[in-house]
Every structure is written in C-alpha cells, then in structure tokens.
C-alpha cells in the first residue's frame, strides 16, 4: 500500500515536471496521465480491498456473533484480532463479554439445577410427612381409643355380670391380651416415629453440609471401611475382594458413608444358597472415576430398581433398616455431581456403580 502511495506521489510530481518542462510534448503528457490514472485507480482499489479485510469483515463477524448471542447461542468465539486499534479493542471486549455471559449462564443453570433438586427434596418431605410420619400417629391415636374402649368394656362386664367367674375370664383376656397389645403398638409407633425423624434429620444434614473436596486415597479408605465391618463379614462368612482402586477427588467422610452403606447393604442381602462374595473395583473412564460394589446376594428385581433410591423405600420388607442408605448415597453422589446406577438380577446379585467427575 505504502509503495503504491509513493508511486502515486512520484507520478504526480513527474506529471507536474513533465507539464512544466515539456509543454509541447502532448503525447508524452497523455501517456503520463493515463499511467497516472491507472496507478490512482489501482491504489483506490487496493485501499478499498484492504479496508474490507481490515474493517468490514471483522465488523460483519461481530454483527453475526452478536445476533447469535442474542438468539441464545453459547460458547461462541470471535476470530482473534491481534490489533491494538479501535476494532481490535472492540473485538476483544466483545469476546470477553461473551465469555462473561457464558460464565454467568452456567452459574444460573447450576443454581437452577440445585433449586430443582431442593424442590424435589421438599416434595419428598411433604409426601413423607403426609404418609410415613402420620402412620405411627394413627396407631397411637387408634390404640389409645382401643384402650379406652377396653376399659369401658371391663367396667360394663363388672356392672352387668352376676356370674363373676365368667366375667373374670373376659376381663383377664382384655387385661392380658388386648390392652398390652395396644400398649405395645403405641410404644413401637413412638419408636418408629423417632427412627423416621432421625432418618430425616440425617438426610437433611447430608443435604446441608458443604463438600470439603480433596484427593481421596480409595485403597486406604475402603480398607478402613472393611475393617469396621470385620465382625459382620466374619459372622456371615463373606469373602471380600478389593482390587487396586483409583483415587478420586471427593469429600472423604461422605465417600466413606457411601461405601459403608453399599457394603452394609451387600452384607445384609446375602443369600443362604451360596457363600457370600463382595468385590469392590474401580477404573477411570474419560473424565470420571467409576467404582463398583458387586455382590452375589439376593439381587433386585427390575421392577423395583427405580424405587429403591427413594426415601423409606424397602424392597426386602423383612430386613432391618429404615430404607435410608441408598437415599443418602444418591444425595452424596449428587452433591459430587456424579451419578449412581445399578445392574442387578434376582438370585444372582447386584452391582452398584458410582461415578465421580475428575477435577478439571
């Protein structure tokens, strides 16, 4: 460009000199003039082209990107202009603005997800308050009325019967059978209520506590957990295989809880048909670490698999526990932004998997 500009300048000077010195030589002047015009036109064209490249194209791109951003597209990038002029500054500022919008959008999405989770929790609490927590109260109320009825009955028997030996038999039945039964139901209902409330509190504590993330040495942690279950493992003659486990980034005490609950479930749901086996293994897959607790116990029918993570849900009705373990596991894994799933078939055993995202 500069070269052309100089050429135009030289051309102009030359034309002027020619005009002054060779006033009569018109042909030369004409050639010079044509040459001059060509050079000027060429210069204008090249200046125009350079303006298109340097200004119009970047502006067009900015306009396109701006309209895509306003249409809701995310993670867009503008071709970087390594320039310090106004357009360079505009383009860089615009890119920063897009990145900022993306970041705040991600934040809003995360918060929204958290809110949806909290809402689901709340709905579950309402469901539980209206069903599970009311259930023991209904027993307490009902059996209290039963006791009042039975006392009234005793009074009526005493008032009405002339034959005391016959009355005695009826009264003894009420005193020995019905009334103690009612009291037993009342007592067990209060215990049940206490159990449920404690479980709810435990779950809400997990929900409220903040994660203290750090590298977790899973080999060490799982070995420690297995030691705490030593007695039950020996008692049930279960053989445990622990493979070399990859470490992960997590809240150690929460991950401890997850594996304790899994192991406790496995031990609880063994079958007498074969010697119990538990295997804990893990691997890294792309950007997450996956662990599996596998047992050869009674397994879970497909039709119950969706429900088992729900609070107070028990598939094996006769086993101890309030139906909390898997709910807590799910809550903890959700807090780690991971996922939990299972692969299980009745009479063969269960494989419970968790995935924990690797740090970015």
């Amino acid at each position, binding site marked *: 460009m500069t070269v052309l500009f100089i050429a135009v300048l030289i051309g102009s000077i030359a034309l002027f000199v020619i005009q002054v010195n060779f006033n009569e030589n018109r042909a030369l002047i004409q050639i010079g003039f044509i040459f001059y015009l060509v050079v000027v036109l060429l210069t204008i064209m090249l200046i125009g082209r350079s303006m298109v490249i340097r200004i119009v194209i970047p502006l067009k791109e900015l306009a396109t990107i701006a309209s895509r951003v306003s249409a809701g597209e995310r993670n867009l990038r503008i071709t970087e202009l390594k320039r310090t002029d106004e357009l360079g500054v505009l383009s860089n500022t615009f890119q920063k603005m897009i990145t900022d919008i993306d970041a705040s959008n991600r934040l809003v999405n995360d918060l929204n997800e958290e809110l949806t989770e909290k809402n689901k929790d709340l709905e579950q609490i309402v469901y539980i308050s209206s069903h599970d927590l009311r259930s023991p109260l*209904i*027993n307490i109320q009902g059996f209290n009325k039963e006791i009042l009825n039975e006392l009234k009955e005793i009074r009526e028997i005493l008032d009405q019967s002339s034959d005391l030996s016959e009355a005695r038999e009826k009264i003894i039945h009420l005193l020995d059978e019905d009334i103690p*039964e009612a009291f037993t139901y009342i007592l067990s209902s209060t215990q049940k209520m206490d159990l449920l409330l404690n479980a709810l509190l435990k779950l809400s504590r997990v929900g409220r506590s903040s994660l203290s993330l750090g590298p977790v040495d899973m080999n060490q942690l799982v070995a420690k957990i297995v030691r705490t279950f030593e007695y039950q493992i020996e008692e049930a003659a279960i053989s445990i295989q622990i493979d070399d486990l990859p470490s992960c980034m997590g809240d150690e005490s929460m991950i401890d809880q997850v594996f304790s609950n899994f192991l406790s479930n496995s031990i609880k749901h063994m079958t007498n048909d074969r010697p119990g086996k538990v295997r804990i293994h893990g691997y890294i897959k792309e950007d997450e670490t996956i662990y599996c607790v596998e047992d050869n116990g009674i397994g879970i029918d497909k039709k119950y698999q969706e429900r088992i993570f729900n609070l107070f849900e028990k598939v094996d009705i006769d086993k101890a526990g309030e139906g909390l373990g898997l709910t807590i596991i799910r809550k903890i894994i959700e807090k780690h932004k991971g996922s939990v799933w299972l692969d299980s078939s009745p009479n063969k055993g269960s494989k419970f998997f968790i995935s924990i995202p690797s740090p970015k």
Partner: protein
Amino acid sequence: MNEDIIVIVAEDDDGHATLIQKNLKRAGIMNDMLRFRNGEEVLDFLYDRKEEKRNPELYYLLLLDIRMPRVDGIEVLRQLKGDERLKSLPVIMLTTTDDPVEINKCHQLGCNSYVVKPLNYESFIEVINRLGLFMKIVKIPNQLNEGF
C-alpha cells in the same frame, strides 16, 4: 354384611391392619378377612399367582392402603381397574392424606371409595356396609370370578 363377602385388607402397617379388623368386628362385621402386606402380594392373590387360591363361590371387597412397599396401592388400583376381569372388584382406598391430587388420581382410576386415616370408623363401616349391600343386590361377583 353378606357372609359370602371376604374383606381383603392390603395394608403394610400391622397396627393399622389390627385397628381395621378390630373395628369391623366391633361393628358386627364378622366376615372373613384376608390380610396382605404389600401391593405385590395382593396382586399375586387376585391374579391367582399364589398358592392360596381365590374361591370362585365367594365375593371379595378390597381395602387398599396407598403407601405400601414394592407395589403401592395406586399401582394396584391401576392394574385392577385396567383389567376387564377384575375391574368390578369394589375397592376402598385407605390413606393418611386428604391431598386432593391423590384423591383425584384414585377417583380417576376408578376406586369405589376413598377414606382418610385415622378412620372415622362409623362412616368407614357405613361405606363398607353400603358396598356390601350393593354387591349383594347387583350380584356382580360371579362374572368377577369367571375367566380366571
């Protein structure tokens, strides 16, 4: 109530089941009762998948709790009312909540009655007697038992 009617109680809570049985007896309903502890057990019985078979000579009335393990009462109701052979079986839903969403759902699925615990036994027994009477008058049951 007609002695040929068997009252099926599908209720996971032992206390609730005992209270129902005691109060029915107190109200003079001496019909035989069958107790199941979850939705799956009651479905197995009604679909004759259990060792204990239904008696084709008898009529059945189902008292169905909603919140039960394995298969809940709403799912049992859905399956029964969606089955040509079983949909005439009278079902009374028993639940601890008067949540209108839940009540609506049960009515839409075709329950015959919906009662909230703690049961007001007077009105509960009235419902049972009415259904029992209804069953006797319209004599549904023999169709109910055909084709099993």
